[in-house]
Each structure stands twice: as C-alpha cells, then as structure tokens.
C-alpha cells in the first residue's frame, strides 16, 4: 500500500502547485477591462444582449435561454444523426427518451450516460454535439461564478454583474480551450485515438474477427476531464485503454478533474478580495477530499466479502496489486482507482476509470456521500463555488446567532433574503434526490432499472438520482435506462442545474447593492481555522444528516451483512 500512498501524495502536491498559478490567471481573465480583438468582434456579432452590463436576472436569463436553445439543437442532432455526415459506422438515430436525457445531461455539465458511446453516437454527435457542450456548459458555469464574485465584491452602487457572453468567451478561449489542446496532444501521444476513420476489423491470433471502435477521441477526453464533464467516448469511460492508455495518461486525467475546481477557489479569493478566506475554503475542500481517499483506498484494497471468502489470492505483492479488482484495470490498480472515484465525485466530473457498481460498500459510499453533499468539495467548474457559498452563509449565520450579532460575510450584512436563498439553495437538491429515489424504489417502473439484488440495488437507485440531480454523471452503471428512469432523470438534471445556479446568482445580485460594513472587534472572522471547522460541521449537519437514513438502507446494511 505504501506505493499507492506515495502516488496519492505526489498527486496532491502537484494539484496544489498547479491550481495556485492557474487560479491567479483565471482571476485575471475575468477582471481585465479590455477584451481582445476577436472578443469584441464576437460580442458585436451577438448583438445588444452582449453589449450590456447585466443584473443578476438578465445574466441568468441569458444562461437559461442559451442552455435551452442548445438543448433543442443537440436533441435535433442526436435524432437526425442517421441522415447526417461524419457517421462512418452508419449508426441510426438515438431513441427519443435516451436523446432527451442525454441532451439534458450534457447541457447541464452532468454527462450521465444512458447509452454506450462507441455503439450509439456518430462521430458528428460525439465531437460537434456532445463535446461542444463539454466546453460551453463548463464555460457557462465559470461565467456564473465570475458574476457572483463580482456581485460580492461590488463596493456600493450598481447592480451589474458583468456580461454572460463576454464571460463565456473568456472561459473558453483563455482557460478551457488552451488547456484542452495541450492535454489532448499528450493523451494522443499515450495512445488515445484521434481519427475520422471508422472502426477497424482485426483478425485475431486465433483467427476470429474483432471490431475496434475509434474516432476523434482525444479532443473529447481532454475537455471531458478538464470541464468537470465526465462523459466519455466509450461506454466504460476512462477505464477503456483507448480513453486512458497508460499510468501517465491516468495521472494527467485525474489531475485535470480537480485542477480547475481547486484553482477556482484561488480565483474566487482574489476576485472578492478575501484571499485568506478562500484558503480556508480550499483547506476545507481538501480535507473532505483527503477523508474520502483515506476511506476508499483501504476499503478497496481490503477487498469485498465475496472475494475474501472465495479463497483466491487478494494479497498485495510485487507481482499483483490484489484487493477488489472487480471492474478495475491492471495498469491503475487499487490506489489510482480509489483516488479517481473520490476526486470525480468531489467535483461534478463523474468520469470513472473503474466500475463504481463493483466498489465495496465503504468504497462506494464515498462517492455517494461526496455527491450528496452537493459536490462543493470544491465542486463543478463554477457551480461548485456558488454551491459552497450556500454552506458558507449558513455557517456565518449560525456563528452570528452564537455571538448574538447580525451575521456578516466579506464586509456585507447577511439578512433574511440571503439566508432564505442559501437555505433553499443548499437543501432543495438533496430533498429532490430523496423524493426521487423513494419514488423509484417503491414503484414497479423504478425497480425495473435495478441490476444488483438486495441493499446494493437500493444504493444503485439512490446513486442514480444523486448523481443526476447534482450534475455529476458517474453511475452505479448496472442501473438501466427505461422510459421511467430516463424521464425522471431528465427532470433531475435540469432542476439540479438551474435551481442552485439561479439561487447563487440571486445572492450575488443581492449582495451587489449592499453597503460595506467595516469590520469591528465583534465581527466573526471567516479567515481562520475556527471558521473552517464551523463550515465542515455545517456541511456535515445539513446534507450529511439528510443522507444518513438513506445510507443505513444502502451501503451500511450491505457492509454489516457481510
């Protein structure tokens, strides 16, 4: 296990070292006054909506209209792909319920996949449909974060939060696209295909025919990892050697999962002029990430009850990694798969490099809890931070009650309106998850999707609605697509995206017009360890307590029974 721990520690060190300068760069991108020539041309092309300083409602409207418009476009492409070009393997139209769910899934930065990419999607759908969403949904998330940060930092006067189209342009051109190009080149060098030619038929050494799917994979995998998207080209995602061929590609891909999410905390701290406070948030997120890895890695290395009782050799040695190798790949072993499972659910990525359905009860509970907390550790690109702000406000409020003062945050008074928005923002999605999972587990239509028997089947269901509602996209992949599950999932996807986003924007808009209150001796400090512990406690006591009863029916029962 020492080798695995070493790899995880090096990963953590590289993550911290790279997220810091990137965060500084990102803050610069969103605060510089003058845009480049192309930016000005692009905004002029878009017309008057791109020429104004938008208040939170206008900003939100632009995001929503853009997302819905793109949904219609993408749905059309998936339905018509059989008649369109770049379809060398002659794949037919995507069935309408799956197309609807997939559309919702990709425009909301979720990338839940009720289909097998290499056998369902034409190259056109993959690269000009789905992969485009991986850029713009991530870009929109970052844009909203920039807007919220501007609202918070606004010192008197004005309701403007910036312009969505300008922020979207900058997210993509200055952050997502350059990183994607660099990562794609490295991934292709490791063995990720990048071609417009269709599948190859090989004649194996024993004389059988083998169909090898390929396509423009590399250009998609890089943005899939960087933009907290997670939707792969192949069905088994980054477990497939064509998406993730080597330990090098694996290290870079799992680094890409957390890179922008952690960098955005640095960016946020600079934009709201509260760097120490942002480091406290960084530390809290990092602590939750570390706790997850410390649970998942030993649990998977210990192996499952079935494997231990079977008598086969699961002992870690120089010639085998051992442990729960079910649905895991040799080149990654246990440490890298546990690390990935934790990282991908700390944020709203959801890509996997091994099957989550086959994780041990404790190993599978980690990603489930991570997602249920709202993926604020540090969450999806953009969406994570405004999700985290809900908890921060609740923590500030509770602390304010303790010391008997009006709660303040970053120099602004937190009053009834902000508290309502924060409470609703933090609790609406978890509530929806529990209701949906309950409906899906007591109805015949819902039970039809369940693959594994017993408590594990319950976890599958809970995981499915937790993942879609929180826009993660990872799956206990045995959970099957039915008309019922795809439709319920579609509702979860849109609601889970827009509700917290609009609540976050509203808080930004509300704080923008508030006067600054100078800090006094009675002000509760939010830039120290006390606040960090307070915040951890609030996260555990709100969403954490909400999922506990459901956990006892799923992973806890499963763990105790064996």
């Amino acid at each position, binding site marked *: 296990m020492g080798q695995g721990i070493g*790899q995880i520690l*090096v990963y953590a060190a590289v993550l911290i070292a790279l997220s810091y300068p990137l965060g500084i760069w990102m803050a610069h991108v969103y605060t510089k006054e003058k845009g480049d020539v192309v930016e000005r041309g692009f905004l002029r092309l*878009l*017309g*008057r*909506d791109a020429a104004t300083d938008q208040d939170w409602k206008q900003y939100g409207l632009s995001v929503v209209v853009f997302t819905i418009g*793109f949904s219609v476009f993408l749905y059309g492409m998936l339905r018509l792909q059989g008649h369109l070009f770049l379809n060398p393997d002659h794949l037919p139209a995507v069935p309408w319920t799956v197309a609807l769910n997939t559309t919702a899934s990709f425009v909301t930065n979720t990338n839940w996949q009720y289909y097998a990419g290499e056998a369902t999607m034409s190259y056109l759908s993959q*690269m*000009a449909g789905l992969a*485009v969403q991986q850029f713009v949904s991530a870009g929109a998330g970052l844009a909203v974060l920039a807007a919220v940060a501007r609202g918070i930092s606004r010192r008197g006067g004005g309701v403007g939060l910036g312009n969505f*189209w300008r922020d979207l342009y900058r997210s*993509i051109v200055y952050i997502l696209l350059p990183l994607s190009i660099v990562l794609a*080149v490295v991934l*292709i*060098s490791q063995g990720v*295909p*990048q*071609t417009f030619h269709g599948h*190859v038929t*090989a004649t*194996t*050494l*024993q004389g*059988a025919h083998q169909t*090898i*799917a390929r396509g*423009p994979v590399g*250009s998609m995998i890089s943005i899939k990892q960087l933009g907290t998207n997670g939707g792969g080209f*192949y069905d*088994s995602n980054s477990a*497939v050697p*064509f998406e993730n*061929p080597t*330990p*090098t590609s694996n*290290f870079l891909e799992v680094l890409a999962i957390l890179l922008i999410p952690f960098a955005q905390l640095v960016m946020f701290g600079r934009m709201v002029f509260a760097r120490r406070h942002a480091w406290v948030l960084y530390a809290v997120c990092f602590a939750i990430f570390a706790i997850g890895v410390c649970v998942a890695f030993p649990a998977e290395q210990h*192996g499952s*009850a*079935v494997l231990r009782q*079977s*008598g*086969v*050799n699961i002992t870690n040695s120089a010639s*085998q990694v051992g442990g729960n*190798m079910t*649905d895991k*790949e*040799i*080149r*990654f072993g246990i440490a*890298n798969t546990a690390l990935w499972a934790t990282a991908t659910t700390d944020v709203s990525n959801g890509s996997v490099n091994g*099957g989550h*359905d*086959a994780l041990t009860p404790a190993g*599978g509970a980690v990603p489930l809890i991570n997602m249920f907390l709202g993926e604020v550790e540090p969450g999806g690109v953009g969406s994570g931070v405004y999700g985290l702000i809900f908890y921060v406000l609740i923590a500030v409020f509770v602390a304010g009650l303790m010391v008997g003062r009006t709660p303040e945050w970053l120099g602004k008074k937190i009053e009834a309106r902000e508290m309502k928005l924060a409470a609703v923002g933090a609790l609406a999605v978890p509530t929806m998850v529990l209701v949906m999972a309950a409906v899906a587990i007591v109805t015949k239509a819902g039970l039809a999707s369940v693959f*594994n*028997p017993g408590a*594990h089947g319950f976890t599958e269901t809970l995981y499915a609605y937790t993942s879609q509602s929180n826009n993660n996209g990872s799956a206990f*992949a045995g959970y099957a697509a039915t008309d019922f599950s795809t439709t319920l999932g579609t509702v979860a996807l849109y609601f889970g995206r827009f509700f917290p986003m609009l609540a976050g924007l509203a808080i930004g808009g509300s704080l923008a017009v508030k006067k600054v209150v100078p800090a006094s001796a009675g002000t509760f400090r939010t830039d120290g360890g006390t606040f960090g512990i307070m915040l951890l406690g609030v996260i555990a006591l709100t969403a954490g307590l909400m999922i506990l009863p459901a956990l006892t029916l799923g992973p806890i029962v*499963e763990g105790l029974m064996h």
Partner: protein
Amino acid sequence: MLRALLASVVAIVVSTVVLGFAYPALMTGVAQLTMSHQANGSLVMRGGKVVGSSLAAQSFSFPGYFHERPSATSPAYNPGFTTFSNLGPTNPALAQLVKQNAAAILKLEGPYNPGLTIHQIPVDAVVPSGSGIDPQISIAYANLQAKRVAAVRHLPLATVQQLIKQHTQQRTFAFFGEPGVNVLELNLAVDQQVSG
C-alpha cells in the same frame, strides 16, 4: 428575452463551428501527422494484416497462448462495445462467477502446476476488468500460465519467463500506476519464438 435568444442562436452556431469542427479537425491533423500509430488505435500488424490493438484484449483459448482476464462485454473482449460487469461486492452472481473461473483455471493449469490450489490464483484472473478489454494481466497471473505455455509450445520454461519479463510494462518512472503484462504482445512473442 428576444435579445438573449438572438445572441444564443449566433453563439450556438459559432461555438459549434469552432469547438465542434475546427478544434477536433486541428487535433486530428496534428495527431495524424505526428503520431499516426497512436491516433489510429495502436494497431498491431503481422504479415501485413491487422491482428488487433496493443490497447485491447482479445479472446485467447488455445492452451499454447497466455489467456486474458475475464471480460463482461458481449461477446467477450469487444472493443466495439465496452462495458463493466457491474457485479456488486455482495452479489451472489459474483461469487458464482469467481467460483467458476477459479475452477476452470485449476483444471487448465493444475496438470502443469502440481499442488496448485485456489489460494495461488491471483484475483485479477477471476474477476472481470473495468473496460472488458484490459490488455494486461498481473505478473502473478502470467507466471501461473508460464508452465502451461512452455509445455504446450515445447519451449524451455526459462525462455517463456524471459518473454514475460520483456513484455511486462513497468510503472511509469518506476512510480506511477501498477505493472502488468501485455497479453497480445506476449503471445506474438511466443509465436515468434516458436516459428523461429
């Protein structure tokens, strides 16, 4: 509302052209020019024919070949439709599968490894891989199969063990990932050793 809609339409067109076509086309151009082997699927050729990809497992059942890990795809080892097994850690079907696979290995390898018991079978040999096309097996599983392959192919055991060593992909920088043996490459080497 109308203004936002107009802006959206333009943005949808521009982003689809730039991100959906120009970007992947650029990457494909660069990839095909500078690293076409990887970009086309790391295909393995023998006698001018494509015999597989070094990144995909294929079905080996002949006793003279090293065998792959189990696969949950349909048919097994299908790089045209990858999938997990999704068998939960307490699923009786997993217990059954492990039992079956272990029994098959004992039957196949037992005659060449006197005294072989289930405790010597490495776990990766009996559980499905993540992709269903994991091209590697553990060193332990390769070593377990070495005596059979040597006997069937009439090769000295030391030669076969040497081939395993040569086709073991070590940790990157001796640090990242886990070592494994590429089965297709190993079997090609065995074939070559036999033919000359």
